[in-house]
């Protein structure tokens, strides 16, 4: 169901020049949800419009399209407006993009979960199609002809019989007076007529980026603004025992220090607490912090050492856990043969976006204004509102470009810090996190242990497969002391094992969180996929079968998986299962194409050269990876090439999909080789990029070849799904090359000698 309204005469938009413009707003609700609940449908049709999309045309013909999603590098700020501009038949050079502020009227704005295209493609299409129809009606009215005689062509309406044309700008006053067409009256372009969707397009901000004009969070300056850098408690939940700020205050440019209270559990997105150094400029506050002397009460998490904690996780997955999927009876099968078992481990990791957290806030009375690189401006409204004790509607959030996000910038603790300080000081405050702060106080990707066990038939194919994971859950961020995951965490690669096997059980064991846990690009898929696709490779080799042929055999001919029939309440990334099912035919196809593109069948592994393969469905998209490695006698690893094949339905901007796959290959390889956060006495031990290493150009694949599956399926996301298959494809390649099985990350040289 879609709703489009003409809002030209309403003051809907904040900070966007709309005087004299023709403005429409559109919203699309998922049909399956509406079909289920007639009452919901009635309510949705009659309630005030919460439009996801605003599209307008000014009298000079300039089109503006508001994007309510955050730009952290996926290109979404360009891609969604392209969808509307295509249906509008606009001249892209006359389209401007406006960044929406945080506002519940946009619907969901949390730019995570790889769902911006999935959830808003239709709404942007509808907005473009409705505006075009209204412009045609307006033109036909001016000419006194039937609108059926009119077409559009690149920002103009054309009267076909006479060849007369009117620019969209000239039609603005008339179109602004028309009622918007109803959803069912909308007519969309034929696919052959698409001019932006499916075409490579440069991103809107590319020029500003290469000239240095692009504005990130740290680039915001306000009159009278002071700078702040905060010494956080080194252990989560710790409090200040004593402060000596005498030396800090002697640093030129330092004005004062301010104590911030430690959060009350659960921490959620609250400020961590600590001592803020306030000063005239960034250098003053960074230097002031070095001169600050603080003693802390550490609290219970000071007992956390990551090495014994790893052993605890490994021990947990050796024990029976809570069952989340139970197909057939694995136990009775396990009695019939000699089981194959393996336990895998991946360490904690940090997001380490190149732009550390930063925010600027101004507070006056019961109103606050925040500028921040945030993935979720509505969470900023809620978090800042709660921190200040004001209505979240009174928190105005301006979203800057994000210097990377990867999930970290969905959690606006740094915005709360800026707001609390701005109120305390009565002036605008910019909070800057150093790289050390970013790495030591992240919402970490969990360490995880995953155990797999299978028994196999005469051809080596499993007849029963048990998998069991344990990791400190994201649930602990929202519930103090939570030791079990929220359901969705296991829907990320554990309960959705896609193989056609009669007996499958998925279990999870409890784990305590001692640091803040959050979601990192592809979340639990990272460790679930690493373990499952490594184990599949181990089973293939145990059976002396080709890993590709083996995995295709386990998938069977392909079908839509019916997890519901197995009693699994699968959350499917928030998408209706009937429209976005797990279709193993699509997994087969990406595997087959990846094999073909990489020359899998004719390439011989061994002697330090090897290919590895894995395919994984996540975020409703299907990705296969083939990684090529060359390992030298000293354990040095080169990655000459990675092949990525993605089926994400209809592709809007192929160049940006390729870019996401290229970046996923780099991040996946880097994660496997380098990423590890450790803790001692509750303190994270990595301070900067010399200790928490991320992929540099020398660590990265020389070539990433990306193949996009031509598809008419519903469009789905690509920000995250590239990461999960890369890691096991890489370690499988190392096995093919060297015979060394890597079950624990990161891959150190020692593991390859």
């Amino acid at each position, binding site marked *: 169901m879609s709703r489009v309204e003409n809002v030209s005469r309403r003051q809907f938009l904040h900070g966007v020049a709309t005087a004299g413009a023709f403005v429409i707003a559109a919203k699309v609700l998922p049909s399956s949800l509406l079909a289920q609940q007639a009452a919901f449908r009635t309510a949705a049709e009659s309630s005030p419009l919460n439009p996801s999309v605003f599209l307008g045309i000014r009298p000079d013909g300039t089109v503006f399209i508001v994007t309510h999603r955050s730009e952290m*590098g996926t290109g979404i700020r360009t891609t969604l407006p392209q969808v509307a501009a295509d249906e509008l038949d606009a001249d892209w050079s006359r389209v401007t993009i406006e960044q929406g502020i945080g506002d519940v009227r946009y619907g969901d704005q949390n730019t995570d979960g790889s769902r911006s295209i999935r959830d808003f493609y239709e709404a942007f299409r509808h907005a473009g199609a409705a505006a075009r129809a209204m412009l045609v009606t307006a033109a036909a009215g001016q000419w006194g002809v039937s609108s059926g005689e009119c077409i559009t062509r690149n920002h103009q309406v054309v009267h076909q019989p006479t060849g007369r044309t009117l620019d969209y700008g000239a039609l603005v006053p008339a179109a602004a007076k028309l009622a918007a067409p109803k959803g069912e009256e909308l007519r969309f372009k034929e696919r052959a007529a698409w001019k932006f969707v499916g075409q490579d397009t440069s991103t809107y901000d590319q020029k500003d980026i290469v000239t240095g004009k692009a504005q990130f969070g740290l680039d915001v300056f306000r009159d009278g603004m002071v700078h702040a850098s905060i010494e956080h408690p080194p252990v989560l939940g710790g409090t200040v025992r004593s402060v000596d700020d005498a030396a800090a205050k002697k640093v030129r440019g330092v004005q004062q220090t301010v104590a911030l209270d430690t959060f009350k559990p659960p921490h959620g997105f609250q400020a961590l607490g600590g001592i803020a150094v306030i000063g005239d400029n960034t250098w003053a506050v960074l230097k002031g912090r070095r001169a600050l002397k603080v003693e802390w009460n550490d609290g219970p998490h000071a007992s956390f050492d990551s090495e014994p904690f790893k052993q605890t996780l490994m021990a947990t997955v050796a024990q029976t856990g809570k069952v989340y999927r139970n197909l057939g009876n694995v136990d009775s099968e396990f009695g019939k043969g000699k089981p194959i078992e393996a336990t895998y481990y991946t360490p904690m990791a940090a997001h380490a976006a*190149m*732009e550390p957290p930063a925010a600027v806030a101004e507070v006056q009375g019961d109103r606050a204004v925040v500028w921040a690189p945030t993935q979720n401006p509505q969470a900023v409204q809620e978090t800042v509102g709660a921190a200040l004790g004001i209505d979240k509607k009174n928190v105005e959030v301006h979203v800057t470009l994000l210097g990377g996000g990867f999930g970290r910038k969905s959690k606006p603790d740094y915005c709360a810090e800026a707001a609390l300080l701005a109120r305390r000081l009565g002036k605008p405050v910019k909070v800057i996190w150093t790289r050390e702060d970013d790495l030591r106080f992240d919402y970490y990707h969990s360490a995880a242990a995953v155990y797999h066990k299978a028994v196999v038939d005469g051809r080596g194919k499993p007849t029963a497969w048990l998998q069991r994971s344990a990791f400190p859950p994201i649930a602990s961020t929202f519930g103090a002391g939570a030791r079990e995951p929220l359901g969705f965490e296991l829907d990320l690669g554990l309960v959705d094992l896609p193989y056609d096997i009669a007996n499958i059980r998925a279990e999870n064991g409890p784990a305590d969180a001692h640091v803040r846990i959050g979601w990192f690009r592809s979340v639990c898929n990272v460790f679930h996929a690493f373990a499952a696709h490594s184990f599949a490779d181990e089973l293939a080799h145990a059976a002396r079968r080709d890993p590709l042929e083996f995995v295709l055999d386990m998938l069977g001919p392909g079908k839509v998986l019916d997890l519901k029939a197995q009693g699994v309440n699968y959350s499917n990334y928030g998408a209706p299962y009937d429209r976005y099912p797990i279709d193993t035919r699509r997994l087969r196809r990406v595997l087959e194409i990846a094999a073909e593109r990489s020359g899998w069948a004719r390439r011989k592994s061994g002697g330090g050269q090897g290919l590895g393969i894995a395919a994984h469905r996540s975020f409703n998209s299907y990705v296969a990876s083939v990684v090529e490695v060359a390992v030298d006698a000293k354990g040095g690893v080169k990655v000459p090439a990675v092949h990525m094949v993605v089926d994400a339905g209809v592709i809007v901007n192929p160049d940006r999909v390729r870019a996401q796959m290229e970046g996923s290959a*780099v991040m996946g390889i880097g994660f496997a080789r380098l990423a590890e956060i450790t803790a001692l006495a509750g303190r994270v031990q990595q301070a900067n990029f010399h200790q928490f290493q991320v992929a540099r150009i*020398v660590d990265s694949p020389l070539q990433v070849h990306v193949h996009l599956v031509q598809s008419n399926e519903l469009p789905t996301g690509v920000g995250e799904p590239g990461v999960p298959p890369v890691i096991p494809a890489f370690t499988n390649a190392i096995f093919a090359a060297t015979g060394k099985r890597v079950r624990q990350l990161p891959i150190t040289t020692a593991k390859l000698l």
Partner: protein
Amino acid sequence: MVTLTVNGASRSFDGDDDTPLLWYLRDELRLTGTRFGCGAGLCGACTVHLDGQAVRSCQTQMGTLQGRRITTIEGLSADGTHPVQRAWEQHNVAQCGYCQTGQIMQAVALLQQTARPTDADIERVMAGNICRCGTYQRIRAAIKAAANGGRA
């Protein structure tokens, strides 16, 4: 008092000698195209040119800059048409874009030293510049295109 030239204009600075050039550029001159990434010379996001050489502005103290000549991304070309900037645009290199100004300044310095860099030259000189989005393949391609007079 330190006097220096930034993007062709004479400037003076009377703060602490240990102030990193990065924060002078950003906080005082509002030349925000030079980015903060690590503060320790480990990531390259703050790369600028000092008398034509690529340096990390977070590790360059103002007290050492008397009479020196600084070029930032804003001063690389008047309108973003330096061959390296053009190559970056043509290859749609940037994802989030945060590190790219540092990457560009490093790449310009590379091409001034080595007109036709090999893959090994590129890896050696660009290894200090981190891109968390993983745009290295396009960085490599854009450098080669710029070296080749804009042809891919």
